[in-house]
């Protein structure tokens, strides 16, 4: 290179100064792309932070470990060692037991005991996150003294007592200090089947309930100090310390939240990748149009003795300047987006904005801006080598056809550059998504679409040219001119088609994925799901209870009833249970289990593997919950033998399921077909959706009529869960809308960016007597065709791509919707038309002379 970088910069700068408007357009395109990317990422991070804060609250801790046996002293010593590294812990013990009112004579009917779900905590530590709200309001440690408890309001109704009264629990008599209005981890507890009684661990020891052989659960809560090791490491240490426990971190606070969170995370990173790709498209189109225009200048510089390298130097510097400028502007835009989004969605839920300036994100944004700008200008920059100085002598001269050998070399160079660009995008994508897998899918999607779109576009345009030339009937001049514009020399129809097609593919994918995903997420906590449960319904009580529910105020939807059968697992694949190498945690399956039967798959569970049985299956079959299957090392095609009511049944495991909607008291760990459990005595559990305000009255009525049935009210807890699910749905919808709008704007800008080339033609037409209507119609034909074709290609690709993303990355299902496809085609055509029009509007009004002077 003869030119020094300084000289190159100076020339580049001079050129930038001379045509500010056009450069501003490029800078804006880069800024829009980088802004969309950094904004979406920033928002996603804030949203994830909000969501994880909520998950921590739902768990009341960063991590939990739960097991069914008390930890051995040396295990506790191990846990204590973790404290030094910033990992605190506290123990919660849970059990179910009977409790009764101490305010009435012990043998009176009013002293009938009720099933209590007892939770013993260290009120000085618990909860690590969230708060236990009590009525009357007081601190938890004041409510839980050695002889006092806090109880759910259900208890007051059930036992006809009030705050200040006393209860018999185990060996103790305890005073009710307050009612529990809400407890953060109500949904992550183990033994929820009972009326909530909360007490301190000291008080619990005194009750003597956790004696040898009692059914109880031990839940350790862990809290990480900011200095603590990463969650994954802590998890390992805990698993080492408590090998029999089931460890979960805040991301798994509740299976429903976990999946919502996982999917939201994947989706959000997908949207930021798409924002990046769409932004890059904008940059590419802007630079493409820009350099196309510079070809004359380049020819002049070359004819004045500049080498290709000089010219590339000048334009590389220019590109870098534009990319940097756009990147910086984009980071500011992104920052604004990040700040504005939470305000926009504050109507749905509050979200704390990360007020701290994130230098990393800013650097990332600028790097992406500069890198994508450079990457996408590489091909036109390299094309500079081919610009002949003769270009100034004869504008629009077709390139001389090279011998095939040379063409191959040229193509090989182009392919190598394409591969380089894709690899770089893949790198950026993996970096952004923090997952090479997600990044890989994107690059693969991008590469395949790029190739397909280029091929189809070039094929269509060539075809159009041939058809138009040989068309038997003369097409009206305006239509012909519009169509001819598509394949003309120096037109960017192919580039626009590819860009528009890609843009449509990605934005439509956002919509399609969002649509399926939100539907599935909402399904995990649908608005009508039961929030009051009835446990221990004997068969003859089912009908009277149904009648009671029918006459109760505030019931929404239809109540559901499911059977529960007590059995014992005796053999797995023929091996007696005692001889199975199950882990410690699987031992509890040795005692009796409650299982259910059903013929149609209940809505509350989803199949993970295997398949549900057909109606009328006569052989004994069973579907097993994921977690139970894991503990018992069960797979589909295994067999389990159960025993109950003096009968033995050998059932084939045909499916593994996952509980997707919470059902308190449901025996949905093992679901048999009805034929398998014929003749087994069953009790029932019921679920009903009620308005919060009417639950108390219902509980009183139910207890009066059916004292043996336990009513569990999870209205509050479920509301929290549903709120989280709604928030995920809102955030996903919102971001999708943004991505789609940003996509539309950037695509519109890309189309608009090509207007500079139209000016001359419009003017010639005008001197020949064409009105604005004429010129407008020509544009319409051109843009509508362009938009419709790209829309169709993009929509088809989007279907394939979103199907893939949903199935492979999000474990959700996708079904093709031709209505959406047609709508996408129509909207793309309109978008192209509108943006084309807007961009050409000024041209149409210009005086011909102004343009003709620019010779």
């Amino acid at each position, binding site marked *: 290179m003869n030119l020094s970088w300084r000289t190159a910069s100076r020339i580049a700068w001079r050129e930038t100064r001379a045509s500010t408007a056009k450069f501003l357009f490029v800078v804006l395109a880069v800024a829009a792309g980088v802004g969309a990317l950094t904004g979406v990422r920033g928002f996603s991070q804030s949203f994830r932070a909000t969501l994880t804060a909520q998950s921590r609250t739902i768990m009341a801790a960063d991590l939990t470990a739960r097991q069914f046996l008390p930890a051995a002293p040396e295990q506790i010593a191990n846990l204590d060692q973790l404290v030094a590294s910033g990992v605190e812990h506290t123990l919660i013990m849970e059990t179910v037991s009977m409790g009764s009112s101490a305010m009435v004579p012990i043998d009176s009917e009013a002293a009938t005991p009720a099933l209590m779900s007892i939770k013993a905590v260290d009120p000085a530590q618990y909860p690590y996150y969230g708060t236990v709200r009590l009525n009357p309001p007081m601190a938890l440690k004041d409510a839980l003294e050695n002889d006092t408890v806090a109880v759910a309001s259900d208890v007051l109704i059930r036992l006809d007592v009030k705050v200040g009264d006393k209860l018999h629990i185990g060996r103790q008599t305890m005073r009710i200090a307050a009612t529990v209005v809400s407890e953060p981890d109500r949904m992550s507890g183990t033994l929820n089947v009972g009326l909530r009684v909360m007490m301190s661990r000291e008080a619990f020891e005194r009750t003597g309930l956790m004696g040898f052989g009692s059914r109880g659960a031990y839940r350790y809560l862990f809290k990480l100090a900011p200095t603590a090791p990463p969650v994954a490491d802590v998890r390992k240490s805990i698993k080492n310390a408590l090998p029999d426990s089931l460890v979960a971190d805040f991301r798994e606070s509740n299976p429903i939240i976990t999946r919502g969170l996982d999917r939201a995370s994947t989706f959000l990173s997908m949207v930021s990748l798409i924002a990046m790709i769409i932004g890059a498209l904008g940059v590419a189109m802007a630079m493409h149009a820009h350099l196309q225009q510079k070809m004359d200048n380049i020819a002049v510089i070359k004819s004045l003795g500049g080498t290709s390298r000089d010219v590339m130097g000048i334009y590389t510097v220019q590109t870098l300047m534009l990319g940097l400028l756009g990147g910086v502007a984009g980071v500011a835009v992104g920052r604004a987006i990040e700040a504005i989004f939470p305000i926009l969605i504050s109507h749905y839920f509050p979200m704390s904005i990360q007020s701290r300036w994130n230098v990393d994100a800013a650097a990332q944004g600028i790097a992406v801006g500069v890198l994508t700008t450079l990457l996408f200008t590489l091909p036109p920059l390299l094309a500079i080598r081919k610009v002949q100085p003769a270009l100034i002598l*004869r504008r*629009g*001269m*077709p390139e001389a056809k090279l011998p095939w050998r040379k063409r191959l070399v040229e193509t090989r160079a182009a392919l190598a550059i394409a591969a380089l660009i894709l690899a770089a995008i893949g790198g950026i994508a993996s970096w952004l998504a923090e997952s090479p897998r997600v990044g890989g899918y994107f690059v693969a999607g991008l590469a395949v679409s790029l190739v397909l779109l280029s091929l189809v576009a070039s094929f269509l345009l060539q075809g159009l040219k041939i058809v138009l030339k040989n068309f038997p009937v*003369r097409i*009206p*001049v305006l239509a*012909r*001119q519009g169509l*001819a*514009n598509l*394949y*003309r*020399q*120096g037109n960017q129809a192919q580039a626009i088609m590819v860009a528009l097609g890609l843009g449509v593919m990605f934005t439509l994918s956002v919509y399609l994925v969002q649509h399926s995903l939100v539907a599935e997420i909402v399904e995990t906590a649908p608005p009508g799901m039961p929030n009051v449960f009835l446990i221990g319904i004997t068969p003859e009580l089912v009908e009277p209870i149904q009648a009671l529910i029918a006459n109760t105020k505030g019931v929404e939807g239809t109540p559901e009833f499911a059977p529960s059968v007590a059995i014992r697992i005796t053999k797995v694949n023929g091996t007696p249970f005692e001889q199975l190498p199950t882990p410690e945690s699987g031992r509890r399956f040795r005692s009796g289990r409650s299982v259910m039967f059903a013929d149609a798959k209940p809505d509350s569970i989803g199949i993970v593997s295997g398949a549900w049985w057909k109606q009328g299956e006569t052989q004994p079959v069973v579907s097993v919950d994921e977690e139970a299957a894991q503990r018992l090392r069960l797979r589909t095609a295994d067999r389990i033998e159960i025993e109950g009511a003096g009968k033995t049944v050998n059932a084939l495991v045909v499916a593994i399921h996952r509980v997707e909607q919470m059902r308190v008291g449901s025996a949905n760990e093992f679901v048999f077909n009805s034929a398998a459990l014929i003749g087994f005595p069953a009790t029932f559990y019921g679920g009903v959706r009620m308005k919060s305000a009417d639950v108390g009255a219902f509980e009183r009525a139910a207890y009066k009529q059916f004292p043996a049935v336990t009513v569990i009210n999870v209205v509050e807890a479920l509301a929290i869960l549903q709120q989280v699910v709604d928030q995920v749905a809102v955030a996903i919808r919102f971001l999708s809308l943004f991505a789609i709008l940003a996509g539309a704007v950037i695509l519109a800008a890309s189309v608009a960016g090509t207007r500079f080339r139209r000016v*001359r*033609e419009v003017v*010639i*037409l*005008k*001197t*020949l*007597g*064409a*009105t*604005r*209507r*004429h010129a407008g119609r020509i544009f319409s034909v051109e843009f509508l065709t362009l938009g419709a074709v790209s829309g169709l290609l993009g929509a088809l690709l989007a279907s394939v791509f979103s199907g893939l993303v949903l199935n492979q990355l999000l474990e959700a299902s996708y079904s093709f919707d031709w209505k959406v496809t047609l709508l996408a085609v129509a909207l793309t055509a309109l978008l192209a038309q509108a943006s084309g029009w807007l961009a050409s509007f000024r041209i*149409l*009004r210009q*005086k*011909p*002379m*102004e343009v*003709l*002077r620019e*010779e």
Partner: protein
Amino acid sequence: MPHSENIILHAQGITKTIDTGTHRVEILRGIDLSIPAGQFVAIMGASGSGKSTLLGLIAGLDSPTSGRVMIDGVDITGLNEDKLALLRGCKIGFVFQSYQLIPTLTAEENVLLPHELAGGAVAAGLTRARALLRSVGLEDRLDHYPVQLSGGEQQRVALARAFMGKPPILMADEPTGNLDSVNGAHVLDLLISLNEREGTTLILVTHDRVLTSRADRIVTLSDGKVVSDEMQTTVADAAGGESRV
């Protein structure tokens, strides 16, 4: 005004000033010009004297800062872009120095374009387009695209296109400026003979001294003003031209 029915183009006190932001450029400083139908006017002057600007104004390609332009009795000064376009379509043919063909159309289609834009029937137009192309010697290049033609050939297509709509006025701005002398002479010959055949008023901007002998009248511009306006005495019937100005 006597003979006013014969005046096809009338410019009155036109000025053109351009404000570039840093300074104002007075390109035309008050020009009056009346051209009777059928006259061949050559506009001459040094480069930068304002010839192209004047031609643009009287063709309605731009609007003057002050003054009026009448074409065939119609005041075009206040017309909007569309009305101007329609007027150009039926009254004016224009030939540019740099041809300005539409690259996506073949020679034949380029010539046919004004006819089609005016809403004429294709079959009738095609006959005339081919005849015109034949008269400029391009009958075997009908299907060629502009890039496949030489400069001289392109300018001949542009000539045929300019005559296509049978305009009463034909304007040409240095039509030979981009051509070598042989091709330039050929194009001019064609222009003038076509003009004679079609009976068109011809306004031609040129530097070409040879042309002066063939024009009816020579208007010379300098620094945005008409400095001389003379009838060619060699042409008999132009004798009274001077009095008409």
